[in-house]
């Protein structure tokens, strides 16, 4: 007598809880700092046809859609009738998993009453896969480390020891890698156990009715959101710094009755360094940006993702083909939301934020090669800093805040406790937020040096040194980023390897976000508050906001 939809909703809620549990279990056991600090993982549950039913909401959007597609690929590769209970499949192929070799994807068939009723899958960032390491310097994928094509990692509960040995033998961090792979296995198994428990508790024999309900409800909700949008095609070009030369990213966004199509046609070709982006990863960030504005309340699954389609000519830098190097695919991948918003803001004026710093300002620091001989401190730090986000149609941008990425920044005290670095300053950069009716978020000003008599190695891959975040609707641009070494004011390029000598200071200034609306229209109250708080200078109030001061 109780309507079955409520029961289905309870089960949907249960699946959403199960994937969050899986995700948490994975984050807790992971060794990679980017996983710990940023939740750079994904965990999901799929039906027997490989359709994604639920995905954990984790720290970075880089896995949205990618995992849904990856599981379909693996399902097509391995026949269901060959699968046995306790089997787990694995790959880190960037074009299947998540855009670079560090991301490992595992998939496990879930058996109930001797039948495959679905799959659990998860992805996590491993610390090191050999090659030249995490940096843009590789000239092809072979330089970047070990690629494992789709294969069976666990056979009926038995881990393939040779495979694990190969992964360890090809890594600078074999113990952490092994730990991470076991964490992934545990995550798949936990999801599988919970799913089976749910089948028992609710007396199900298959997931068909539940998966139809989830997918239909989500698709319908997404289509309703799309129906409310104007129809047509909008174009935008975003210029980015690139490695050596600036690069143009092109997009055409078509809003049709029952889907959105994003086409990167016209985008520049791949370059010879590892900032190229496989399409699955460009799709992840593009779809994330769209879903922030269109149907943000609907969970990720095959139904809600299906109406979002992304394409681009093979070989363009947003649809890199093997063997292009892709290690730092996130540098440009994180710029795609600004590209997408350039299109969407034309369709939805007054609804889309201005451009932000967007690309995270990673600051990976390591000891210099001679440190071992000299007896210096050996260390590897993966610091992440951020600039300001773009001003929003109703709110100022957020200062020193990650978007689109969901990373966490680091703390000075814990950093100084584990590595020979000393911070001299970390404060907001006054005047860096683009002026506008709504102000862009501010970037930050960081100064650091070695705390001991040793050199530091820095591996840069950041954007917006040459191309600042543009304002929207009359808002002005945010300040570009700036990276220099003092004394001497040596300007560093945004990408490449740098040595900071003992006694030198690195000045690392992250970009501000763009403003929204004309600065003259900013309320007097808001301008005065910014002045009092020291977020803008008197000069800026006069010249850009046109106030008498």
């Amino acid at each position: 007598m109780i309507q079955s939809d409520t029961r289905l909703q309870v089960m949907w809620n249960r699946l959403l809880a199960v994937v969050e549990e899986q995700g948490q279990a994975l984050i807790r056991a992971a060794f990679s700092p980017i996983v710990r600090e940023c939740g750079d993982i994904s965990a999901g549950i799929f039906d027997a046809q490989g359709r994604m039913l639920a995905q954990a909401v984790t720290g970075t959007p880089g896995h949205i859609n990618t995992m849904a597609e990856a599981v379909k690929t693996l399902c097509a590769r391995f026949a269901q009738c060959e699968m046995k209970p306790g089997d787990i499949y694995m790959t880190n192929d960037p074009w299947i998993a998540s855009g670079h070799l560090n991301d490992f994807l595992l998939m496990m068939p879930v058996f109930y009453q001797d039948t495959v009723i679905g799959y659990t899958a998860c992805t996590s960032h491993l610390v090191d896969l050999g090659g030249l390491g995490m940096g843009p310097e590789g000239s092809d994928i072979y330089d970047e480390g070990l690629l494992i094509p789709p294969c069976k990692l666990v056979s009926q509960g038995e881990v393939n020891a040779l495979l694990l040995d190969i992964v360890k033998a090809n890594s600078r961090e074999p113990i952490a890698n092994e730990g991470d792979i076991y964490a992934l296995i545990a995550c798949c198994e936990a999801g599988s156990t919970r799913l089976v428990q749910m089948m028992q508790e609710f007396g199900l024999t298959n997931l068909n009715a539940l998966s139809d309900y989830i997918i239909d409800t989500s698709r319908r909700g997404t289509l309703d959101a799309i129906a409310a949008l104007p129809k047509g095609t909008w174009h935008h070009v975003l210029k980015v710094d690139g490695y050596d030369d600036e690069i143009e990213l092109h997009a055409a966004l078509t809003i049709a009755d029952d889907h959105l199509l994003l086409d990167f046609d016209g985008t520049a070709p791949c370059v010879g360094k590892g900032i190229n982006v496989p399409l699955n990863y460009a799709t992840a960030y593009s779809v994330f940006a769209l879903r922030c504005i269109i149907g943000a309340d609907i969970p990720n699954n095959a139904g809600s993702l299906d109406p979002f389609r992304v394409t681009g000519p093979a070989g363009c830098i947003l649809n890199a083909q093997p063997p292009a190097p892709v290690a730092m695919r996130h540098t440009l991948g994180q710029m795609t939301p600004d590209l997408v918003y350039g299109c969407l803001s034309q369709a939805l004026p007054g609804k889309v934020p201005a451009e932000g710093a967007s690309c995270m300002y990673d600051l990976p620091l390591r000891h210099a090669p001679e440190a071992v001989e000299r007896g210096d401190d050996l260390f590897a730090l993966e610091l992440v800093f951020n600039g300001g986000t773009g001003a929003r149609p109703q709110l100022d941008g957020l200062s020193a805040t990650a978007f689109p990425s969901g990373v966490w920044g680091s703390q000075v005290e814990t950093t100084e406790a584990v590595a020979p670095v000393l911070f001299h300053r970390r404060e907001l950069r006054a005047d860096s937020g683009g002026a506008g009716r709504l102000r862009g978020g501010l970037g930050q000003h960081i100064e650091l040096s070695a705390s001991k008599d040793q050199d530091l190695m820095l591996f840069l891959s950041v954007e917006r040194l040459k191309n600042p975040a543009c304002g929207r609707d009359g808002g002005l641009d945010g300040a570009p980023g700036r990276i220099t070494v003092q004394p001497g004011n040596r300007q560093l390029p945004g990408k490449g390897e740098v040595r900071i000598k003992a006694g030198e200071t690195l000045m690392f200034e992250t970009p501000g976000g763009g403003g929204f609306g004309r600065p003259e229209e900013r309320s007097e109250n808001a301008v005065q508050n910014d002045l009092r708080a020291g977020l803008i200078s008197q000069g800026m109030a006069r010249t850009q906001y046109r106030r008498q001061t």
Partner: protein
Amino acid sequence: MAIDIGGTFTDTVLLDSASRVVATTKTPTTPHRPALGAVAGATHVLKAAGADWRQVTGFIHGTTLATNALIERRGATTATITTRGFRDILEIAYERRYSQYSIDLVKPDLIVPRTHSLTIGGRMDASGQELEPLNEAGIGPLVAELRALEVEAVAVCLLHAYANPAHELALRDLLAQHMPDLVISLSHEVSPEAREFDRLCTTIANAYVQPLMAGYLQDFEARFRQMGLACPILMMTAGGGMTTLDTAARLPIRLVESGPAGGAVLAARIAEATGETEVLSFDMGGTTAKLCLIDDYRPQTARKFEISRAERFIKGSGMPVRIPVIEMIEIGAGGGSIASVDRLGRIQVGPHSAGSDPGPAAFGKGGDKPTVTDADLTLGLIEPGRFAEGRLQIDQNAAQQAMARDVGDPLGLSPDQSAFAVSEIVDESMASAGRMHAVESGKDLSNRLIIAFGGNGPLHATRVARRAQMRRVLIPRDPGVGSAVGFLFAPVSYEVIRSRYARLDSLDIDGLNHFFGAMQAEAEQVVRAGAPEGVLLQRRIAYMRYHGQGHEIEIRLPDRDLAASDLTELREAFETEYSRQFSRIVPGMTIEILNWGLSVSSPAPAHEPYPDTPTEHIAGATEHRQILCDVTGTWRPAGVFNRGDLTPGAALKGPALIVEAQTTTFVSADFSATVDGQGNIWLTRQEEDKA
């Protein structure tokens, strides 16, 4: 005597020397002068017990005043002083958004605006070495700025002060010379842990409520002394221990969230009395439900919680406070939680709550939104005539109408079906939160005993238990005033957690022993003020992890100086616990430790021998009510019992309702109930009896 001042009610409990509850009362909280309501409650229980003030030999107080001052922003005008070059610790925080898809998110208000963020030169490094002396010449301009801003309280948080507090102490002395009335909180005293953002936030929260709390505590003490109270007043802390008025006035942040902690202390006490080593306490009230894992009779503790969340139930949206606390997860699921239907046709319950004012639709006090209480009424689980001891006129039609309008009509469900669905959703969300919390803690739920209390805990416990695949529930006596009863079982205690980075394989043992010695002296001094006599217990903890991991594992150290010979055992203890949580260890990986804890406490009151449960006898229902059964989904009769009539040994089968003054225990159809020698109700799920 224990007094728990909550936002709405003040609970007062009187125990005799054998730890038996002799009188309890709930009086309305008097927000402008909270001590007045407390005096009223105290007078009432003394009269009820026929006792007088001279007979009161212990007095424990818990209050939400500090919490409310933080929520309602009624604290002092506060400024911060941080190290030069680091003015924006608050603004920069962790550089993150707490909600992934929200374009319009607003960050939490962290009390001190940038205009009030000041700095001073001087620098320590991570090991506590001075790199640059404190800029004493800068004090003049600093004082001028503080005066210009009309600052009442200041939070001082200098980099690495946890490793060397010399600059903070010197700065305090300089400030006090110039501004004797300024209230000063120092980060190394409030929260000596590394991570400047968290430590600064904690110090700010402490400074912000300090003037208010100091005044309140003074007034409270004066009033009770005037009444004739002769024994010392001890304050309940968030860590589940008691502390003196002096410590409370100096570190009022430790009083925040002390009420719920009392509930967990009570549950732990019952766990110990009944020999239950794995427990989940479940405290469901009008606005929220709070869950706490209790292992080996100790509530799980944490070193951090959040206040002032921008979105109340979103983790990471608030201001972190790093102090030792009993760890509880709070879900927006209470009797007043509002049910609605979203645009996908999904039922949502909470986190918005109608609270007690205007309250559920059935209260007829102006609330017209359907709530969990309205659903329980519609399902027949609450007797309208006996709700809140008959003080509230319950309008069942209003409940049904609200349910029909906001849930039934959009989904094509009858009011009954809607109420059933609302119950399923809210019970599932509590069960999921419990499972999630267990996973995050590396623990399992299924074999645990639920100890349920609060106004709605006993009503929802069997439904939540089934969804969490748990089989046993205990309802203590006086479940409506559980927190205040818990206060009376708390030890006098103080815990210090301090940062000092080390690797297990290169531990400086002498240095560490010296470090612990200082922590011990600090903690003992605080505890001795409240427990001058008798032995004190000590616990030393290392928070260990594999290098590269973020998740720390709490490992108990011997309660004495460490020796080199202990290291092997510590490694083994870590590996044992790690493999319990993660099913394997990681051979060859370095083990590191950043934080160390030490707590000193007086022993808890001894347990009376637990009485045996007499032979079971079948209890007879006083009447039957029609309820919509949560197992079969059909209307069927449930026996109604008065809790007061159930004597030890009484046994009954669900579906049944056991009614008492402040709550009703719902025994689902798949559960049976027995009353033990202590008067606790045990509910057990019968797998085979699903009829």
